């Protein structure tokens, strides 16, 4: 846009350098150029951040979107031309009741897990702000370890705990607790108990993040306000509910938003548990289902787009609200 007007201006001076005209020109040009550059500078600074985002996120997203309207599988990858099929991938997927089952399960799993994570996380954060130094540091170290352990290492340990033959959970239940039916009990073979195990693992892994963010926010609640409320006769619960929560709400909102996003696209935990011997088809969630479609990139692309729309639907409310609060 800025380019067309420039050439005539810059081309003009060399043509007639003799007339006294050029004299007033420089002062005119300088003020014009300066704001333009000044305006450009912040954008230039954004370039290093925007380029990786465009390359790393934008390109795959656009490609995924385009693929979802094509027929693109293994053969196309090795050079056969890809055919445009319009909405066929979408209609095929969305007319399959199994796909709706997966979507339903994923949303339920996501909401239950995000809710549990927030409840446990906020609870622990409050606990952390009430206990003494030694207990707090113990809690913090424990949380950090849970947060910092690599996912696959964690999953291996959980898998061993719940192993049907040699797992310690079954051993404790069947031995000391005398529940003989748990000897050799398989925890992951029924979808319901599969999701129970998955929930335990997912919540366990995401709680530390919520604890730390909430705890940090709680530290920002001004002591004077708390004291004033206390003098006014507000009990501990009232102080938490009507003072702390409204003050740390932006933080809670963003933590919950992230949990919803993460738990909707949960992949590693489910995938590893499936590999450990669960019935694959009955335990698919969106993440693993998209992966299972990857033999046909166009199908996987369509499903991933559906998943993106779903994520936006679930989080749109939050995002609007967050943006509004930021403006205030």
């Amino acid at each position, binding site marked *: 846009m800025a380019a067309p007007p420039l050439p005539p201006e810059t081309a003009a001076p060399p043509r007639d350098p003799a007339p006294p005209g050029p004299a007033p020109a420089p002062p005119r040009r300088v003020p014009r150029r300066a704001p333009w550059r000044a305006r450009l500078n912040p954008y230039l600074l*954004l370039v290093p951040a925007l*380029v990786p985002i465009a390359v790393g996120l934008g390109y795959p997203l656009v490609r995924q979107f385009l693929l979802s309207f094509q027929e693109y599988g293994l053969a196309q990858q090795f050079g056969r031309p890809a055919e445009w099929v319009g909405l066929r991938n979408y209609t095929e997927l969305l007319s399959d009741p199994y796909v709706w089952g997966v979507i339903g399960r994923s949303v339920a799993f996501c909401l239950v897990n995000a809710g549990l994570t927030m409840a446990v996380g906020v609870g622990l954060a409050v606990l952390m702000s009430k206990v003494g130094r030694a207990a707090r540091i113990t809690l913090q170290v424990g949380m950090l370890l849970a947060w910092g352990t690599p996912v696959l290492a964690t999953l291996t340990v959980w898998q061993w705990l719940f192993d*049907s033959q040699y797992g310690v959970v079954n051993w404790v239940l069947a031995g000391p607790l005398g529940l003989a039916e748990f000897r050799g009990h398989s925890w992951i*073979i029924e979808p319901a108990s599969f999701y129970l195990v998955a929930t335990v693992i997912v919540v366990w892994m995401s709680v530390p993040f919520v604890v730390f963010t909430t705890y940090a926010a709680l530290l920002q609640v001004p002591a004077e306000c708390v004291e004033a409320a206390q003098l006014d006769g507000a009990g501990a619960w009232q102080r938490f509910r009507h003072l702390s929560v409204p003050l740390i709400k932006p933080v809670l909102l963003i933590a919950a938003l992230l949990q919803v996003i993460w738990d909707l696209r949960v992949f590693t935990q489910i995938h590893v548990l499936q*590999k450990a011997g669960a*019935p*694959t*088809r009955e335990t698919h969630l969106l993440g693993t289902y998209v992966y299972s479609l990857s033999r046909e990139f166009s199908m996987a692309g369509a499903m991933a787009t559906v998943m993106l729309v779903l994520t936006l639907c679930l989080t749109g409310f939050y995002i609007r609200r967050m943006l509004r609060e930021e403006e205030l």
Partner: protein
Amino acid sequence: MRRVRTGGLAAAAVASLLAVSACGGGSTAEASGDTEVRLWLNGTDTPQELRDYLVETFEADHEGMTLVIEEQDWSGLVPRLQTALASEDQTPDLVEIGNTQSPTFTYAGAFSDLSDMYDELGGDDLLPGFVEAGTVDDTLYAVPYYSGARAVFYRKDLFEQAGVAVPQTLAEFRTAAIALQQANPAQDFSGFWFPGQDWYNGIAWLFTGGGELAVQEGDRWVGALSSPESQAALTEVQDLFTNATRAPRDADSNEPWVAFNNGQAAMFSAPTWARWSIALPECDKGVDPDDTSPEAEALLAEQQACNEERTGVFPLPGAQPGTPATVFAGGSNIAVPTMSQHQEEARDLLRIIYSEEFQTMLAENGLIPGNSQYAGALGDDPYAQAALAAAVDAKLTPAAERWADVEGARILEDFFQQIASGTDVAQAAAEADRLLEETLN
């Protein structure tokens, strides 16, 4: 404040960009150095000695070139190949691929035509089922690397205690397994170690009974698990699951010797190289695995002899006495990816692999070599005999273009798990047939 933060962001972004470009620079520099030929082998089936032989022989013939062998995990191999084989930069120059996964890639045009090398590599001596799996429309794209036939390992002492003889037919095998389990009342004892997702062993009953997984009717693949032959065989399988095993329903065919070594199973079925994994507690000499002194090696040899003395092996028997069962022929093919920039070198490497020396080495390590002419080197111990007997009649999964998708979706794992869980056989088969058809067509 704001300015500082933006500056930090920009700096971080620039730093990461630099890091990325530095990585790129590194790999191009490496590629422009001496030529590197890459071979992908899967799992640990190919012993180190054979890998060393390949590298030494290849590099001796090709001055200034290096052969890099990269080991891939069998699990998740198909998606990895799907991305690697389509890229000139990432593709290996020669690749091992599971025999049942070959059709998916040969149909897609991922491999170069090897038809002109057929006779040179062994011609009609190449394992026929594997050649078929690597052929599309009379063009050969993938050649057999090795086959690992399955055989049944058993504890001689437990057979004696239970008064069971080595079974001669498949029906006898089932009675023996049930008798063994009844003779050992321990709560986690299995007559035959048969975990719920173990379809590799389970389909031996299907094939022996004349059943099929899927058959081609015209252009379409049709699931065949509901046919009367398949149903009869699957009912026997369910009986085994119910009465002859206490293996977890959520386990697969990996490491079946663990329970055997723990005294929790009287029999298990595995490729014959599983003999090296048997370690009965009563034979354990407590040798440190890192100890390479002559004493340690002598002790290990003693330990191995002790294990093999107590363990017997036989090929899974067929319907009639004296015939082996039709078992699943596990094994792999080898192919040259189309995208490889070193076609000639890859072909040279193939020639080394199909040389008498290398094929003999494969056989000496208990693998049935791609060129069956050299299978004699398997030796004449009971393991080799059992392997050979099982390989005679072994069978592959359907050579359908999309068979790898069936494995990717774990349809058969789910199906056998349902049978192990007591689901009605006809109902489970109908559902599995539907899924097979959906996936294969």
